[in-house]
């Protein structure tokens, strides 16, 4: 196993070359199953509470489709950058891989910036965390997703530093692979957020 990183010849699909790497990927998928349940509870409470708007503005007046569409495009493109990083990993091209990872987190930061802008707009329109059951469950669900994006940006950022220091080995490759899976998962959750929260909220 250690022979691989010593002589520099990486095995095919280095993220799955060791038992540790394969276990890491399997364990990560089980974690994502738990994450699905976590987001599911937030979605179900949002669905149960979304009509209780109290004195706040209703969803159909609050949400701006262009902003949501821009955020969706940014995150979708970022997911594509991340899959290109994994392809570069499989081709053992370290520099392009780092480039794709940087593109991934830059777009992630763009998404976060847009979300912060959106939330401040809502607060000015009287849609604050304590306004109503609708606003509380909205900020909890969408904010939790935003926190996942922020964590992903931090995580992938640290992985880039580690790759620059240690290079691509059978130890670092599973980390890149798993972070890409995480990033796609965040995009999948966003698909449900823009559908259930924003588009359905706009319809009424």
């Amino acid at each position, binding site marked *: 196993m250690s022979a691989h990183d010593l002589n520099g010849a990486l095995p095919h699909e280095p993220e799955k070359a060791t038992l540790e790497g394969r276990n890491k990927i399997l364990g990560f998928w089980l974690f994502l199953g738990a994450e699905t349940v976590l987001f599911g509870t937030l979605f179900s409470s949002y669905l149960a509470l979304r009509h209780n708007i109290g004195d706040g503005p209703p969803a159909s007046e609050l949400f701006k489709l262009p902003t949501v569409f821009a955020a969706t495009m940014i995150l979708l493109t970022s997911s594509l950058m991340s899959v*290109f990083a994994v392809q570069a990993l*499989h081709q053992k091209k370290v520099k392009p891989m780092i480039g794709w990872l940087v593109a991934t987190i830059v777009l992630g930061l763009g998404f976060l910036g847009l979300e912060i802008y959106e939330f401040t707009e809502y607060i000015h329109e009287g849609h604050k965390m304590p306004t109503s059951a609708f606003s509380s469950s909205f900020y909890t669900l969408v904010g939790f997703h935003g926190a996942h994006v922020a964590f992903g940006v931090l995580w992938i950022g640290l992985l880039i530093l580690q790759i620059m220091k240690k290079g691509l080995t059978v130890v670092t490759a599973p980390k890149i692979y798993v972070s890409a*899976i995480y990033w796609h998962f965040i995009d999948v959750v966003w698909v449900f957020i823009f559908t259930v929260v924003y588009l359905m909220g706009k319809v009424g």
Partner: protein
Amino acid sequence: MSSNQSTHEETRRHREEGPKKHIVAFVLSLVLTLIAFAAVASGEINTTFTYVILVGMAIVQVFVQLSFWMHMKDRGHLFPILGIVFGAVVVFTMVIMAEYWVWW
């Protein structure tokens, strides 16, 4: 062991097809997203049918992303599928409960 080896050979060929399938998945996701946004933005489709379109587009898009970008359709993904399906079943139950049972 030998069967393991042949699996590796197959995925190798699969992987080296290049970025084409990922771009196809991206364009597909883009189109599905556009349909969903257009259905709401046009405002001409009745509410029930819009809901059907929205949920349909979301589910198809999630399948596209899970199978292409998260490599779920590749070999050796039985346990990941079990994990996610388990999560999805719990979510489905909770969403149905929240929509039709809690406080109504």
